[in-house]
């Protein structure tokens, strides 16, 4: 499958500050999470993809169109939700969405019809007829999402889309992204530092730190079972079961949340946990293979400790 985004040694300097440092990246269609701490270069990378800033060096393509020269073609096929709180003053919500649709080339009447349809999809109700200046931050976020998808782009670039949303709205927005990705085949580049958002909808994860790509991998690969560890959650005193397991010569530790992490290279050995639990007089609530947490991977990547990809 052709790469959605393909970057080759992209560097972007703002004066003496290097925001992107020889970033090489190839993203396949699907939902990709772009992770990184503040100042990692996520927003700059997105602006480079959108043709909003010129690169200092390097080349790249988005949807087969070259960066720079192909900015019109790229923007025609990309829906962009900026991180900043931005809107068009003096216009109502539906007018803004219609205006953005027309800027993308939709005919006037069709743009109005489409704007209403998309605002329905985004859950905007009567407030669409109010001036955007009176909107809450959550409603503005909804409006930005609506304008990003109104022209039906094959690629969505969402920069911190859930920032400022309450849990219910956040879940609803992620649900919409999931619908667009799974049912309508849209590709999504989701820039965020909220790890649960990435875990909720992303297939692939890119971690940026200090302007460099540290990790590019499938989420399921990154969060693979951390063999040979198993997690055991129990009713009763976890320490007693830990002592019992330790007597068998297995490595075991009690985590702060009260669960046990057991190193058991041999899968058959772990089957005996039920027996040891009965002997220790504790109940087993869950026995699952331990997985690497995204948070752990993220922190390690940021520190440059592991998964260095470049």
């Amino acid at each position, binding site marked *: 499958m052709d790469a959605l985004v393909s970057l080759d040694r992209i560097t972007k300097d703002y004066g003496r500050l290097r925001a992107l440092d020889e970033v090489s990246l190839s993203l396949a269609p699907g939902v990709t999470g772009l992770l990184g701490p503040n100042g990692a270069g996520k927003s700059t990378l997105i602006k480079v993809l959108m043709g909003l800033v010129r690169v200092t060096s390097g080349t790249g393509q988005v949807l087969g169109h070259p960066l720079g020269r192909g900015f019109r073609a790229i923007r025609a096929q990309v829906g962009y939700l900026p991180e900043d709180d931005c809107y*068009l*003053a003096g216009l109502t919500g539906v007018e803004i969405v219609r205006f953005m649709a027309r*800027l*993308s080339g*939709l*005919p006037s009447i069709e743009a109005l019809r489409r704007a209403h349809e998309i605002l329905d999809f985004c859950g905007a109700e009567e407030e669409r007829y109010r001036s955007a200046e009176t909107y809450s931050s959550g409603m503005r976020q909804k409006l930005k999402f609506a304008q990003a998808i109104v022209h*039906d782009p094959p690629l969505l670039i969402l920069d911190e889309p859930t920032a400022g949303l309450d849990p219910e709205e956040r879940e609803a927005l992620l649900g919409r992204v999931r619908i667009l990705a799974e049912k309508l085949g849209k590709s999504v580049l989701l820039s965020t530092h909220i790890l649960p958002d990435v875990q909720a909808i992303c297939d692939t994860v890119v971690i940026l730190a200090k302007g460099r790509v540290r990790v590019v991998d499938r989420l399921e690969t990154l969060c693979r079972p951390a063999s040979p560890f198993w997690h055991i959650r129990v009713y009763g005193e976890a320490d007693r079961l830990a002592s019992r397991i330790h007597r068998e010569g297995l490595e075991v530790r009690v985590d702060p949340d009260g669960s046990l992490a057991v190193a058991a290279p041999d899968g058959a050995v772990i089957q005996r946990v039920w027996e040891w639990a009965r002997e220790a007089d504790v109940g087993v609530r869950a026995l699952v293979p331990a997985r690497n947490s995204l948070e752990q991977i993220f922190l390690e990547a940021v520190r440059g400790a592991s998964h260095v990809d470049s």
Partner: protein
Amino acid sequence: MSIHDLGYRSWQGRLVPQVGRFWVIAQTGIRLAWRNAWVRWLLFLSWLPSVYIAGLLLVYEQILEQIKTRAPFLHTAVPWLEGVPLSADRHQVWACLLYIFFRYPQLIVVLLVVGQVAPPLVARDVRTKAFLLYFSRPLARFEYVLGKMVVVWTYVLLISAVPALVLYAVGVLLSPDWRIVYSTWDLPLRIMASSAVLIVPVTTVALAFSSLTSETRYATFAWYAFWAVGWATYLTVTANLPSSASAEHWSLVSMSHTLATIEYWIFGLKHELANLFSAASPFAVVRNVGRAGILPPPDQVHVWPAVAQVTGITLVSLAVLFRRVSSPMRI
């Protein structure tokens, strides 16, 4: 709540051509400016002087036609006609009246209308970071700037070229002598040229001020200050000069006087007649303050320095505008 929520559906219609995208920005800007009641009032008021000038044209044409029978009566009714050489070249009289129309009432109304329309155009987008939305679309900076300019052009045309052309058309229609068309056919072209000279620098300067701030009121203040300071400086330095020719050299300190110099040249006026009409018009009150509007002979009108200055100001304003429009994306 929607009556029938269809969910998300793909859209596969036909896109409009890229070339007209700036018009979307222009159309929206025009509509937003129209919501300003001051703009609507100023537009209405801006047409009143054209009624007055049309009356002058009508009187002049009637005098020419019926000079023997009606002239004494008309001279009594309209005292300033005493000095008008009735045998003068009709083209000159028409051109002179149109020049006065552009020079005094319309320039003032243009400044007022642009002061209402232009300041929010870019300043508001700076404040709300709307550039990120605009430029997430297939839109170049040039198209954005053009769209904003068209908003100002539309309103300025509505109060300069359009009433002047209507004035010309009314004058022709009311003239008892249809041959007036042959002798004044070039005036519509001169009107268009004069409007262009007014519109282009005025728009770029106003939008440049607008782009320099996120506060509309600061842009408005800068706009009026730009004209007022130039005008006041000109009046001050020319107050005691011995001749209109000496004063003409100082016209470059005032944008309004610089534009007037170019318009004077565009209309191809003879100074004696122009001065006569100018002095006789109700707007002479403005003109007479510090010899502001005394017109020098054509051979002493140095139009090229004025053209160079207006071109320079326009180019600098454009450079500022383009730079400011792209600056929010650099961070």
